[in-house]
């Protein structure tokens, strides 16, 4: 087998995957205020500017972003509110659906299991405008609430798939044994099913949280003027022009999402091995 060319190609592939992220991290420390693509020296100014920590910042030579700190923090807060709420709701909805489809036999089951995947497969933009028309015709003002409702539709699909996969791998004999020993359905669920299901639940919830924090397209259509989330805030910043502060913010976001995702994937890998 000619393995060497394949190995070289694959390593280049992985470099291609990580190069763009590395580039942002690198630029975020570049001191050049005129052209951030030309390296001038190391600085933490953009991070300071981001948090408004630099008191001696001179607005004449280095433009601080007008909408900088308070708006960014408001967007971050909105994102967290939305992500925590959607994670809770979607985890409950997705898990109940997975339990129903895994533990019971009923007519139209295939319809449900297929239908629960559709929100995930639907192109973002179609769902986004559908929700926009729906909320405005229903007379609902666009707010964090509309974002939470909108995101829960497709996040439920994701949780459903993760939990379903975990449920399918569980040994039904344990539940049967519990029932034979006289435990009620509820006790069996609490003491037998739920502990075994925990890694799946956690994995599904983490996935929902990350995807919610990152959702741009659907949120873009159903967020009102006062309910910007972080991705929308960054999207707006980029549309207005490239600023070095974006690099610093982007670096922090990469760091945070990689940490959360790393934790989730590690937990899952550990759960699989057990």
């Amino acid at each position: 087998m000619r393995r060497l060319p394949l190995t070289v190609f694959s390593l280049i592939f992985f470099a291609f995957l990580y190069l763009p992220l590395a580039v942002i991290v690198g630029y975020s420390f570049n001191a050049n205020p005129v052209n951030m693509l030309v390296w001038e020296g190391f600085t933490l100014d953009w991070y300071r500017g981001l948090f408004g920590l630099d008191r001696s910042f001179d607005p004449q030579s280095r433009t601080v972003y007008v909408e900088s700190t308070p708006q960014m923090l408001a967007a971050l807060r909105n994102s967290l509110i939305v992500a925590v709420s959607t994670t809770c709701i979607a985890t409950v909805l997705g898990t109940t659906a997975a339990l129903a489809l895994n533990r019971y036999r009923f007519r139209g089951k295939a319809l449900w299991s297929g239908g629960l995947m559709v929100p995930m497969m639907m192109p973002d933009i179609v769902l986004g405008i559908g929700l926009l028309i729906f909320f405005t015709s229903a007379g609902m003002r666009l707010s964090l609430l509309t974002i939470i409702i909108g995101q829960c539709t497709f996040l439920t699909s994701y949780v459903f798939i993760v939990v379903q996969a975990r449920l399918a791998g569980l040994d039904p004999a344990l539940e049967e044994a519990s029932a034979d020993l006289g435990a009620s359905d509820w006790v069996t669920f609490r003491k037998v099913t739920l502990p075994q299901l925990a890694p799946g639940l956690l994995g599904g919830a983490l996935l929902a949280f990350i995807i919610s924090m990152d959702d741009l397209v659907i949120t873009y259509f159903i967020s009102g003027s006062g309910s910007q989330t972080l991705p929308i805030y960054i999207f707006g910043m980029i549309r207005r022009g490239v600023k070095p502060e974006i690099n610093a913010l982007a670096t922090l976001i990469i760091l945070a999402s990689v940490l959360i995702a790393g934790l989730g994937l590690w937990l899952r890998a550990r759960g699989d091995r057990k």
Partner: protein
Amino acid sequence: MTHRQRVQLFLLLTPVTVFLGVFFLIPLGTIAVYSLLTPGLYGGVEWSFYHWNYGRIFGWADGITEVFEPVYLHILLRSLGLAAATVAICLVLCYPVAFWVAGLAPRWRMLFLFLITLPFFASLIVRLYAWLLLLKPSGLLNTVLMGLGVITEPLDILYTPVAVILGMVYIFLPFMFLPLFASIDTLDRSLIEASGDLGARPVQTLLKVVLPMTVPGIVAGGVIVFIPAVGNFIVPDVLGGAKGLMTGNLIEQQFLSSRNWPFGSALAMVIMALVLGVLLVFSNRARRAGGRT
């Protein structure tokens, strides 16, 4: 099923059914309804049947209230072309790598699978922004290429369809990789050896043995990449410019700036029909191919 089980099932299934019924099915239905309504004068709608929204896209506009502009059809075809190109490039890049990762020792396999999935979780908008920086005339790509003497003038890739394809390939690579890997991983490697022992050249083995057996993975990866690619509007918005405009951008404009919701809904219906068509055709084909091997 006992009465108690029936009650349990009802309690488990009702919340999700009601929620998705109200906030997913009804919104999709309203798109269909809106696409057949008359656009009002100042961004509203009039509740009367109107098929010229579709006529404006496909060519039976009456020429008075609505005019057929071939540009919509062009943009639709361009979206299809860009999405197809994205699928093809993702496939060509991922296939050898999936093959390589599948042949690694379990420890390394875990590591590289982890490395594939990780960028998917690093914010989409941040990853696109990275390409905006890379492709700028004074960006890293041009600096390196000019430093190496490959080119003398900076390449003008940014704000072209090429930039859109690059961006979409980058963000959708993990979508293609994982189903491909799942398919290649279950491949019986002794068949490859057998093919070689029987005198087939590596290319023959690839085309006649390996590829046909991994068709389900190829189809699944292709569908999963094609669907978000064809209706995409963020990538063309950030990297595309006027020449890289896709149907997604057109829909966004109809809703947020031109305020012609019925026309935007008609465009969204076309995207939805395309996606459903692809799903129907290819999920059947994948099943058949899967059954054959």
